[in-house]
């Protein structure tokens, strides 16, 4: 009898823990009012040192598909229009998934963040890394259009 009760308690805790993380979705994009994304032609995507999943390549491909001249690597040169940095966060729930991605467009001369986008999706509404990259990058440039930059 007591053993059955403890089993019920264990199941209750598991259900509460799983439900507590089920439905957080957040997307944001910001553009500095002093920034201008219109004149961008060349972009360098700086690979995050611990990134073993090639997120830099997904961002590079996305930006190339938008018509920019893009290169990627570890050391950002100064002779590009902007540098892109990113930060990805992963969680485990049956399988590993990307819970959060932040992409920032920076001035190569002083590292100043000109624009930034962030997406956060917990397990039940998880997206693939490519979908996360698409969402964040699209939101950043959409923000530029909304601020009157074509």
């Amino acid at each position: 009898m007591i053993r059955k009760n403890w089993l019920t308690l264990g199941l209750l805790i598991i259900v509460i823990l799983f439900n507590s993380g089920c439905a957080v979705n957040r997307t944001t994009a910001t553009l500095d009012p002093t920034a201008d994304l219109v004149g961008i032609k060349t972009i360098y995507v700086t690979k995050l040192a611990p990134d073993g999943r090639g997120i830099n390549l997904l961002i590079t491909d996305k930006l190339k598909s938008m018509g920019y001249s893009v290169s990627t690597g570890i050391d950002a040169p100064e002779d590009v229009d902007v540098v892109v940095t990113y930060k990805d966060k992963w969680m485990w729930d049956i399988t590993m998934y990307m819970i959060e991605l932040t992409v920032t467009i920076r001035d190569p001369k002083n590292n100043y963040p000109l624009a930034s986008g962030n997406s956060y999706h917990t397990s039940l509404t998880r997206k693939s890394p490519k979908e996360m990259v698409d969402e964040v990058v699209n939101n950043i440039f959409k923000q530029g259009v909304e601020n009157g930059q074509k």
Partner: protein
Amino acid sequence: MVRNKVFIFIALLVSVVIVLSGCASPASKDAVVAHNIPITQHHQKSVSVNTQGGSETGAMDSSNISNSDFAKAIEESIVKNGLFTQIIHSGDSDYLLNVTIINMSKPMFGASFTVRMEAAWSLSEQKTKKVVMRDSIESSHTATMGQAFVGVTRLRLAVEGAIQENIRLGLMGISRLHLD
């Protein structure tokens, strides 16, 4: 019978603790206002403050600060430290201060929580649109188990500390400027 009552009590207690421990509270505006900033120059100008990158705090989320609370905290810090003579909300001010939260990394586990924050601070003249300052400001703050035993409270304290430090560094940077 007594064993069953004890069991029910423990089950209820555990459930309440788990549910409550998941309820995050937002960073308090009053807790992030920066006091006693060493001001190099008090500017005899007016300023408007615009903030981006903040977000509301959901019950199952971690502590955040909303854009309006972030702006109010910066404004209050400016007033308390006499950095500018006037805060104007309509936009007809001498300068526009834009502060964007770029990143706030928060730990999920640990005895001490260290939150790291990056914010983009830009100050421009309203009439000419001339940019007089562009700075990426990084700050961090650690909250210990001694300060708060409950994890969500400890995280909120760390978030508030990182925001307050960012405001302090940002306004110190502006006070070093020579404005016309």
